[in-house]
């Protein structure tokens, strides 16, 4: 048995989700390598990654073709590495992991399990289905098991003072001709990453406008947390798309989740009901969010949010 974890990095840093994927991989109990794929900054990332506790090797695939990790370029590399003797492949269930891993699965003629939340054994896993309304236990029958894991379900791997070995690896060097990267626009934010933040403050339709959403941002900043939003708030243009928490957005499980003006549709609950402590601030005492809230505060948002910010 041998496990390959696919790392992900942004602005020269491993993502928090990668550290969680390593923890999930280590639960399999096998030798574990981490693959860092990227352009100019990938070697710095690999050196940082080599300080992760529990890894046997860091594999570094560096090249201009990996500058923007396109699935069509990453798949041949990952497939060829896996064929050299890995039994398990683990990636964060991020937009990148979900984009790349199904291609790898098809190339190896094996299935894949998405959004794993618990490793039961080396071939059996749990994953939520139906917007988290059911938890399925699934056994993989394939010789190679491919998983994406939910970062919020696994603690982040720890660091150690000693580096493990960093080994350079190469793909076949063929750049995919069926796709071309055009551009990317990433939102610069000083706030912690939504998927792994310790505190998340989310606003819903009740915030009424983009301007009012500043109240959410200020409270989040006071708590050192991330900003989230319900689908209704995103659809109304109050918050950016990538802040959506829910079945089809980000899945979060922070220590503290504050839902302000969010009624609590099942699709939203699917994205946050794993949070340790949930606070709901809402004018409607009967809103479905009350069913999952530890603390329900029935109040006017525009008085409550500034008051809470001041009281902290």
């Amino acid at each position, binding site marked *: 048995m041998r496990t390959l974890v696919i790392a992900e990095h942004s602005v020269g840093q491993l993502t928090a989700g990668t550290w969680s994927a390593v923890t999930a991989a280590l639960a399999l109990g096998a030798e574990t390598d981490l693959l860092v794929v990227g352009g100019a900054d990938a070697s710095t990332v690999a050196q940082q990654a080599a300080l992760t506790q529990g890894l046997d090797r860091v594999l570094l695939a560096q090249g201009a073709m990996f500058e923007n990790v396109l*699935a069509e370029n990453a*798949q041949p590399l990952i497939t060829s590495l896996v064929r050299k003797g890995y039994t398990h492949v683990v990636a964060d269930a*991020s*937009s*990148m992991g*979900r*984009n*790349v*891993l*199904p*291609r790898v*699965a*098809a190339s190896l*003629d094996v*299935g*894949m399990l*998405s959004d794993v939340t618990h490793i039961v054994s080396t071939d059996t896993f749990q994953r*939520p*289905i*139906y*917007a988290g*309304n*059911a*938890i399925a*236990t*699934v*056994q*993989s*029958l*394939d010789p190679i098991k491919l998983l994406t894991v939910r970062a919020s379900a696994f603690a982040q791997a720890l660091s150690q003072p000693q580096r493990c070995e960093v080994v350079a690896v190469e793909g076949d060097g063929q750049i*995919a001709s*069926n*796709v*071309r*990267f*055009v551009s*990317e*626009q990433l*939102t610069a934010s000083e706030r912690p990453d939504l*998927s792994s933040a310790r*505190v998340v403050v989310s606003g819903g339709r009740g915030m009424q406008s983009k301007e009012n959403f500043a109240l959410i941002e200020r409270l989040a900043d006071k*708590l050192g947390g991330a900003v989230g939003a319900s689908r209704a708030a995103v*659809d109304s243009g109050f918050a950016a*798309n*990538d802040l959506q928490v829910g079945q*089809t957005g980000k899945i979060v499980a922070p*220590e*503290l989740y504050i839902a302000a003006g969010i009624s609590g549709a099942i699709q939203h609950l699917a994205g946050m*009901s794993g949070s340790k*402590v949930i*606070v709901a601030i809402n004018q409607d*005492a009967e809103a479905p969010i009350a*069913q999952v*809230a*530890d*603390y*329900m*505060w*029935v109040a006017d948002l525009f008085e409550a949010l500034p008051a*809470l910010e001041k009281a902290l």
Partner: protein
Amino acid sequence: MRRTMKVLVAVKRAIDPNVKVRVKADGSDVELNGVKMALNPFCEIAVEEAIRLKEKGLASEVVVVSVGTSAAQEQLRTALALGADRALLVETSAMLEPLNVAKYLSKVIDQEKPRLILFGKQAIDQENNQVGQMVAQLIGSGQATYASAVNQVDGQWVVEREVDGGSQVVALAMPAVVTCDLRLNQPRYASLPNIMKAKKKPLEIIAADTLGASVKEHARLLGVVPPAVRKAGITVGSVAELVDKLKNVAGVI
């Protein structure tokens, strides 16, 4: 249109998004007996996008395909009522594992030769988010998952994608695979005359085992449990009470 620009849309019959899901008493699966089913919402967005491409003159024909039991004809008729031209059902009663579905669809693509294959980004039942990417691999196409805008420029599909932390634009050679995200469009409602017209549109049924796809069982469902129930919360009456609870009871601030 001089060249044919066929768009294929793969759709899934899934539980209606407004239905409360219940786990069967024996824990074998979720209860789907007598439960309202619908076109998976993301597939509906994919159908809408195909129809809009046709309305803009960027597609000449919209073909919808589904893999599943004969009951999925209902969802194919829905897609026809929305404006698709014809439908194909790859009929099978087997468990719909993503790789197997992708293999059937690849065979259909071989026959139909579309220039664009649209998918929903995921189905709201099994939430795999895999089939589009697997099809792209099997047919050797480029892919754009989580699409928020689809355009045609100089014989390529230029697609804006929603990614963690922002958005990305990629250009894809034809044929290409695109999976549709929530904000790509707002699907229309089918009008009554269109629902009537859809009944007369062609719907071909293909037995799955005639396609020559090498399918097998990749995973086995061992059981299903309901999620852990959160213990009942309390109502707080003031900011002071809330802060006190968070500090001294929950210990999270």
